[in-house]
């Protein structure tokens, strides 16, 4: 258990620091000035000293200098109301790990103490107020609320319209101004951020760069009006990952969903069983569906082989029956399974089975009526 020494002439500060350290499960000791601090260091070994600058008898820089002169290399975190560069330059030269300016937020103290002690931060839930209300949902590993999409647009209708086009499990939050977007990004975690390129008095590229520093794992998409210009190229040159055009087009949104959200629904893996999800788009998009499913299945077959399964079961029950695409998909999967050294078994209804019997490459394949039957076969 780390042991921390707080040296400060203010009892209130020592009490606050002590409580924070005890909450982290650390041992804590206190000293009122540099003289007492040095005496404590003589008695015990500490993992960290949290040191004030201005104190009676012996101030922080004086105590630090004596520590270092005596060869004591205990890490020191300065916690002070002193912000003069000239004073801090000398203190830094004597060797400190970091600095906190009073008054301080408990989160800053905790974060810097944990960083100095090289301990991973525990999760701290954060809440947010403001407009419009964010959907309640999952928590990311750091304890912040996780929301799938943030729409930054001064027109309130935009995020409302988007909500009608995405499945219910995809959560959508909204910010109507740059300030509320920055606040949201400080307090939540987003997978994708949409930024309107025409918010009055907002430089969308600068805002995107600012938000990226807060949401380093999110994708940033520009919301733009259709134009004769090559908007996609221009936005990508500014650093956006892609463009979504307004007014929203169902196909455009479907492509976006497939890219960022739907992959897990198109193919669901359970050990060595791969279930293909249903197709729910316009007929002219069926080719894209099969291409995506084929790619995802190939990736999953590779994983199944890597996990030392000798069989892969693919459930075609929910996939659409297409005489020109279904056999081709199965043939490709058969080749992939052979390449990886695993046996392929299919689960499908009578119509799928009848179709596959018509092709030489698939006629002799095992097609079962249920997953249970396939596992037993």
């Amino acid at each position, binding site marked *: 258990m780390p042991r921390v020494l707080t040296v400060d002439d203010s009892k209130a500060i020592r009490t606050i620091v002590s409580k924070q350290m005890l909450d982290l499960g650390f041992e804590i000791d206190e000293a009122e000035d540099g003289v007492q601090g040095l005496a404590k260091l003589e008695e015990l070994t500490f993992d960290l000293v949290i040191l004030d600058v201005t104190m009676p008898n012996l101030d922080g820089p004086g105590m630090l200098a004596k520590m270092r002169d005596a060869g004591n290399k205990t890490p020191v975190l300065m916690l002070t*109301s002193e*912000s*003069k*560069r000239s004073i*801090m*330059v000398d203190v*830094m*030269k004597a060797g400190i790990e*970091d*600095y*906190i*300016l009073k008054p*301080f*937020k408990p989160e*800053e103290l905790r*974060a810097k103490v944990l*960083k100095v002690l090289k301990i991973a931060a525990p999760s701290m839930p954060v809440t947010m107020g403001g407009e419009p209300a964010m959907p309640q949902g999952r928590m990311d590993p750091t304890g912040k609320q996780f929301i799938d999409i943030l729409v930054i647009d001064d027109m309130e209708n935009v995020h409302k319209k988007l909500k009608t086009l995405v499945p219910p499990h995809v959560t959508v939050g909204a910010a109507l101004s*740059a*300030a509320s977007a*920055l*606040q949201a990004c*400080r307090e939540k975690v987003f997978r994708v951020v949409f930024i*309107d*390129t*025409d*918010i*009055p*008095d907002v*430089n*969308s*590229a*600068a*805002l995107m*760069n*600012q938000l*990226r*520093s*807060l949401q*380093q794992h999110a994708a940033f998409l520009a919301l*733009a*009006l*259709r*134009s*004769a*210009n090559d*908007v996609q190229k*221009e*936005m990508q040159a*500014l650093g956006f990952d892609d463009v979504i055009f307004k007014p929203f087009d169902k196909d455009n949104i479907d492509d976006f969903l497939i890219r960022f959200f739907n992959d897990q629904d198109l193919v669901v893996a359970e050990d060595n069983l791969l279930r293909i999800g249903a197709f729910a788009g316009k007929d002219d998009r069926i080719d894209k569906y099969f291409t995506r499913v084929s790619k995802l299945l190939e990736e999953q077959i590779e994983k199944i082989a890597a996990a030392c399964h000798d069989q892969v079961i693919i459930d075609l029950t929910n996939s659409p029956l297409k005489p020109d695409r279904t056999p081709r998909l199965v043939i490709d999967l058969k080749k992939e399974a052979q390449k990886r050294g695993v046996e392929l078994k299919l689960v499908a209804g009578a119509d799928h089975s009848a179709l596959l019997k018509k092709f030489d490459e698939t006629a002799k394949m095992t097609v079962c009526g249920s997953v249970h039957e396939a596992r037993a076969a």
Partner: protein
Amino acid sequence: MPVVAEKLGEQVQAILSKKIADNTLVLPAPPTVVTKILQLVRDPSFSPKDATPLVERDTVLAARVLRAANSVQHGAMERARSLPQALTRLGVEKFKSLLVEISAHRLFESRDPRIGEHTRGLWEHSLAVAMLSRDVAALCGVAETEAAYLAGLLHDIGKPVVAFLLLEAEKNVVGTRTNVWIEPDAWVEVLQKVHRPIGVALANKWGLPETVASAIQDCSEYNSSERVSVGNCVRFANALAKKEGIYVGKIDESDVDALVMIGRSLLGIDDNVLQRLSGGLGDRVRALTV
């Protein structure tokens, strides 16, 4: 014969201080067109398109207005094809910022090769501080992000003015540009020593906002009584730009490290944000100067 920078700095500072005190220092004025437009802007009923006849007179200004309005950063999906259209799209605040930026940039442009080389570097530093100031202000929740950009851009505005005055002084002494009277390194040091009062005087003359004058006045010590402020954002941005090596002149690394360390706590900037702010800064600045 080279002159010791320190002594020269003291002499120049004394001369300039006296001129400022006597109100006899001749400072460069903004371009006439800009001055006239800034007078118009003070009218509460001003609409940017009202400035069209004046903007039309300055071809460089007109081109910059069109370029800014048609920039995709301003959400321009369809090209503005006329000045009134471009001015309306920019809005009053952006138009004012653009006027000051254009005026300032002209100060940093010099035909003298020795000054030109250094002032280009000074301008790059100013742009870096401007961009960082705006980002830091936005991330810290400061509402006046445009003011932060301007304050960052102009925090060293006294330097090109002093450079010009030094060149004039040199010509008076030696009567020719071919003789090297002041070594380049020496006059960069002189700039560093004396630019602040000149910058403040210029800010007053140009009627720049108080936030800008404050950033020019003191860029080396934070004001901890007003932690999250435009001035502190600019001070932090200035230290960060220096730490990234975007600066002309000698840098005291300990000083810069202390300013970054203090600024991080003062403004609440964590490691991730710091990394993001400074990452690729040089490239972003170069993209603006091309």
